[in-house]
């Protein structure tokens, strides 16, 4: 009740203000947008196709939104403390072109629906609601693909929840036959740069590499026994049910059939990552977090 009378006064005052010069700027009157590019599997939906609004109008709309709408709909438009719905997934808002759907709801209000509270009428001048509409569309345009919200402010999350001492014990029991803290793992935490990259890398059994870069693959050894009885050893290039190929120590590439009378007698794979793959089925999340906490001490 108090809120609506306050809005009433604000609206009366604003009604006297002259229209902003940019009033009317919209998708339909703006310059023709370049053709948006649709990338593989990525969304190019109407919210992203809209030309950017006039920055002054958007800024004014943001201020008006903060005054009039934020308490119910949230500062990020994803729903607020007073129970207003998330506007970034509202079919009405998403379907709005130029305020034709949003403006009547803002100015006339809406009865309680979908289990939420009613929307009070905000008798703001159309020009102000238009500015709010421009602001809402500017936020919608920043939504991420696959329906994700606009990117959040970077808020570092602490993934280091494990117990380093328990992690060291786990390491001693499961990892030490192949790895050494003072050997191949020396400085691994420093090389990884972040605890998340460290965890992703060691669980996968790959060398740490800066995030976004591709670490060198760990070579897989193979021993092939030919039909003649001769054996060849090298690095596995490729294997399926029908052929096996390898690179010999001298760099020679060889491939052999695994079918028919010429088939190789045996193929023995020595995959250094096999223990990592088997361990995937055995780690608890606590084991994983503990080992990460331990490895994080190897600066």
């Amino acid at each position, binding site marked *: 009740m108090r809120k609506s009378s306050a809005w009433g006064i604000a609206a009366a005052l604003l009604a006297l203000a002259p229209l902003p010069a940019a009033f009317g700027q919209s998708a339909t009157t703006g310059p023709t947008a370049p*053709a*948006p*590019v*649709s*990338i*593989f*599997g*990525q*969304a*190019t*939906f*109407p*919210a992203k*196709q809209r030309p950017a609004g006039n920055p002054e109008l958007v800024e004014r709309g943001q201020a008006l939104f903060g005054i009039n709408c934020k308490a119910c709909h*949230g500062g990020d438009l*994803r*729903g607020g403390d007073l129970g207003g*719905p*998330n506007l*970034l*997934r509202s*079919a009405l808002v*998403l*379907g709005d072109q130029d305020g034709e759907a949003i403006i009547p709801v803002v100015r006339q209000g809406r009865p309680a629906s*979908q*289990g*939420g509270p009613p929307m009070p009428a905000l008798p703001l001048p159309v020009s102000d609601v238009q500015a709010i509409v421009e602001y809402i569309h500017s936020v919608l345009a920043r*939504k*991420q*693909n*696959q*329906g*994700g*919200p606009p990117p*959040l402010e970077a808020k570092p*999350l*602490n*993934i*280091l*929840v*494990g117990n380093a001492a328990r992690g060291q014990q786990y390491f001693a029991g499961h990892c030490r036959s192949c790895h050494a803290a003072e050997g191949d793992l020396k400085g691994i935490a420093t090389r990884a740069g972040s605890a*998340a990259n460290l*965890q*992703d890398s060691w*669980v*996968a*059994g790959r060398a740490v590499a800066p995030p976004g870069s591709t670490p060198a693959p760990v070579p897989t050894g193979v021993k092939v026994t030919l039909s003649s009885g001769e054996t060849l050893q090298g690095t596995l290039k*490729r*294997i*399926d*049910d*029908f052929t096996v190929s390898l690179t010999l120590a001298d760099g020679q590439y060889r491939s052999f059939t695994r079918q028919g009378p010429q088939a190789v007698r045996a193929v023995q794979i020595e995959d250094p*990552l096999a223990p990592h*793959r088997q361990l*995937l*089925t055995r780690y608890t*999340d606590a084991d*994983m*977090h503990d080992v*990460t906490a331990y490895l994080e001490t190897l600066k």
Partner: protein
Amino acid sequence: MSRALPALVGACLVAAAASAAPPPLLPPAQLLQPLQESWPTYTGDYTGARYSALRQLDRTNVAHLSLAWTLRLNAEVRDGKSRNPYAPPSEIITSVGGEGRGDYAIPPPALKGAVLEVEGVLYVTSPDNAWAFDARTGAELWHYFWKTRGGTHIASRGPALWNSSLFFETPDDYLVSLNARTGHENWHVRIADFADEYFSTMAPVVVGNHLLVGTGNDGDAPGFLQSFDPASGALQWKRYMVPMSASDPALKTWPSLDAARHGGGNVWMPGSYDPQTDLYITGTGNPTPGYTGIARPGDNLYTCSLVAVRVATGEIAWYYQTSPHDTHDWDSAQTPILIDGTIGGKPRKLVATAARNGYFFTLDRVTGEHLVTYKYGTTANWSRGIKANGQPDPDPEKSATVPGSLVSPFEGGVTNYQAPAYNPDTGLFYTHESTGFNILYLTDTDPRGSMGLGGKRFAIVGFVDNAFQAIDYRTGKPAWRHVWPGSGGTGTGVLTTAGGLVFTGDTNGNFVAMDAATGALLWHSGIGNLSAPPETYSLDGHQYVLAGVGDVLYAFVLN
């Protein structure tokens, strides 16, 4: 004489009218027949089994299967002129439709769904494109191009035929009807709100005078199945898969009506149809927001479920939720398979599904009664066990967490869009099995939850041993399991035949034929990783086998 002439002209006109209206290519009643010479729907027939009665190819001769022809999808709008200097002169008719500007850069065409074969003609779709080809030669007959308004161009799962009309869905949410003989448009209708980020990939399903149409959405929007009149495009009914009103009894599985109305459950793969009960049985997609279940405590019906819908009215006859309160984007949209089988010595009408979450289910398809649950995903680790009603019991610790939870299957699931198959001669259900793990991090700790598929990051950390399974529907246990050498790979859809064969793609770029009873490898061709599931049809006494790899379709026969 002067009177006979008009009579003759009249007779000619009647003849011309008759030749202008040839018999329909595929009367809908024909779809009630078992799958034999043609391949008229997404899965071949209504059972979803992808089992063909063709037996020219069998265990003894499939080793001699060889190439008949290849064709490459060309999405250029050519107006009769090919831009390929090596191609023969072409008289391809290209029609253009659509309500967009026509100047988007869209992905190159790719085969990711059904190729229909009817009366010697193949019908193929890719996002914004449809084609007809000669099934004997691969020669292009017509091409239709749709000018898109945008949207997620991830796949087209294929067209549907009703009489002489061909239907397909577009990424910007239209259902398009073409004249199947000419490629000219009959009509198009909007099927979903493009602004609300729906995108449409499903192969429509024809049942009598109903055209069943589903859509997809990665955001927070309600999923639904619709039925259209195939003649006019008029909407017959629309069935939401989440509660849309306060009176819906399923609302008690959601925290609020607002959450339910943004709760997902999209219908994006073709289902199966039982003519005896007039039930269309479809899988439904994940609840939304996908990874932050904090926003939607409860089971979230009817997401991640098998839902039996009455085709006449759109009412839900029964449902069974295969993944209560999913928090991993593991849709249960997989095409279910109807099986006339035996459980406990009693003949039963069954439906079976191998879900993306790693669990196999067999139900009574008339009543929805649960009969079998088995964890066919050998590495799946997200459930605390199986509840009394057969549902897996999700372990909340295996949702996305800030320090990361180690989850199998990985995001793509144990299986996904890859079409499974069932062979009544072996009693086995065939499916790919992925054994991936990822670390799933929660990146948005907002107590309101995130939106869509946001709020998480996942790191794929390895595959144990990806495999192909032949599952006994009576127990869910594999009769045999073939591990693909090497690691990784997504696997492909499956075809099985009365010749005792299974066709599928391995994870190393081979199209393979196996003994349906034993899994023994009988033939292979290294054409690349299959992007479309294999199919078969017969023409002129030759059994053809099709496999799609990217934009190339391969046809094999016994030469």
